[in-house]
């Protein structure tokens, strides 16, 4: 039961963080970051299987793998930015968290530019 281990890890880390936050808030923040990284590494192997399924689906749909790669990158950017922004908010730096999310949005839009161009190209091809 992997989920029990992960939930246990999270609860222990949460109790520890609450305990030390009054005296050592910087250590509490580092503890939450470390816990988040550990949980992420624990499920990293499972994400590989999910991505393999997504690739197979996109091949069956005759979807260009470049687009799927772009989409996965965007999902990764969203997760990392969300993770970082939450840590910043936990540390009481909501403004920095907002900036991280802003940067992530810009990066997502930059990655989406080739897809927008492909949509336009497909539309133009339809015009005789």
């Amino acid at each position, binding site marked *: 039961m992997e989920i029990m281990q992960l939930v246990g890890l999270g609860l222990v880390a949460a109790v520890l963080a609450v305990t030390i936050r009054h005296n050592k808030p910087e250590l509490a923040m580092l503890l939450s970051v470390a816990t988040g990284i550990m949980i992420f590494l624990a499920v990293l192997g499972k994400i590989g299987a999910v991505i393999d399924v997504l690739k197979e689906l996109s091949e069956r*749909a005759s979807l260009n793998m470049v687009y799927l790669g772009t989409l996965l990158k*965007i999902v990764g950017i969203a997760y990392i930015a*969300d993770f970082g922004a939450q840590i910043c908010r936990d540390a009481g730096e909501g403004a920095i968290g907002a900036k991280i999310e802003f940067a992530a949005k810009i990066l*997502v839009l930059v990655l989406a530019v080739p897809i927008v161009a492909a949509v336009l190209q497909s539309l133009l091809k339809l015009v005789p």
Partner: protein
Amino acid sequence: MEIVRNLVLNLIVIAVLAVFLEMLLPAGDMRRYVKMVMGLLIVIAVLQAAGNLIRGGWQLDMPVPAQTGPSPGAPGLPDIMAGGRRLAADTQAQALEQYRQGLALQIAALAGMNGRLTVREVEVDLYGDKNDKKFGQIRQVQLLFDAAPAAAEQKNPLVGPVKVEVGKNAGAGGNAVSGRAQPPPEVEQAARRAAANVANFYNLSPEQVKFEFRTAAAGG
């Protein structure tokens, strides 16, 4: 049909992929942005498939109608197709014949505009080979005039010119002999001009329009 089936399959797979990816999305504010990109991807996939369909690929992909088993009394597919080809050929031949007759009437009217000539018959020969690039064009026009001037016929239209050749078998028909005749020079000149007019009118070379004179035959 196959391409439509593939299109539907692709759309189903893309929808499943989108739902699967949506579950992976983070819960925060970034979700809307990632969903927008996913929507664009789906639009691309649908446009690509629809583009192939619109460009006519589905027509090439359509199989020849298959008949799994001949129903009793019904002709087979090859017979139906052969009948269709025969029908098309017959219709085309009829159209060509009507066109030829119409041309003959036009040419007869055009050649008969000269009052000195009486047009007895016009034969129009067309290119009839479908594979020929000149299909339907005029190959040759044969004009047949009366040897006698039209004015003379108007004076006595019931009696044609009689040509008596002594010592030759006149045949059972009596005294009228049909055949080549030598018209008066002015009539021949008028026929030459009429042939040139026809050639000019139908953009033909002078060699393609021929004429000759016949004496009036008995009973005809």
